[in-house]
């Protein structure tokens, strides 16, 4: 499991490879916060290579969303598979985040 970060235009794109769970959520949080501190405002997390997310992982997304908004930025999500969509629906987090089917649509939405 790992996170890769790259810039596409003005958007910082984070790929979550593997799981987003209690054992690695702090790593994701720190990587995004580091970019936020550098002045980045637009963030996209792409889950096309993600297995499952636990409650700690969901919590980190909520926390990052708040922190990014506080700095005048935006966090968007893309490429949730059917299982992840179910997870977001169960927790109603699909109402809290702007979620796109593809990375391209998400990038266009900023």
């Amino acid at each position, binding site marked *: 499991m790992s996170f890769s970060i790259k810039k596409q235009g003005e958007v910082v794109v984070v790929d979550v490879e593997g799981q987003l769970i209690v*054992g690695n959520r702090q790593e994701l949080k720190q990587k995004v916060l580091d970019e936020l501190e550098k002045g980045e405002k637009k963030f996209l997390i792409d889950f096309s290579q993600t297995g499952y997310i636990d409650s700690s992982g969901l*919590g980190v997304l909520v926390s990052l969303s708040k922190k990014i908004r506080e700095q005048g930025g935006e966090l968007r999500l893309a490429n949730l598979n059917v299982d992840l969509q179910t997870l977001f629906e169960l927790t109603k987090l699909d109402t809290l985040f702007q979620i796109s089917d593809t990375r391209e649509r998400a990038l266009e939405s900023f």
Partner: protein
Amino acid sequence: MAASRVAFDLRIPSDVDYIEGVVELASQRCRELKFPPSKCSLNVPVALSEALSNAILRGNVGAGGKQVRVRAIIDDHSLVFEVVDEGPGFDLDASTKDCTTDENITREEGRGLFLMRKLMDRVESFQQEGNVVRLTLRRA
């Protein structure tokens, strides 16, 4: 009553880095038993991950030297996981919060037990040589 058998019985150190390996093993057993794919890729991984992280971080309070036992018991109709920690236990109903309310949805914590109960057919917590959380997932 259907005959049951133990699919695995492990003791792991109280360390969250061990969760992923146990969850992978559990998902593999789920697939071998030909449970519906989403139960093996969503229900089992997330619910078991929650039970294990609760046991490690809350039951054993992250203390080194302690262990968590996890057993999987299968029969024709269901897959049961028992996660045992060395803590005093907790009141399952009182500890489960509805994380979907306006008040709770923006909180970072508090989705673990909610998800366990949504994703499993039955969740029980009781004392028996430690604090046991038992998760039951029916095939259909």
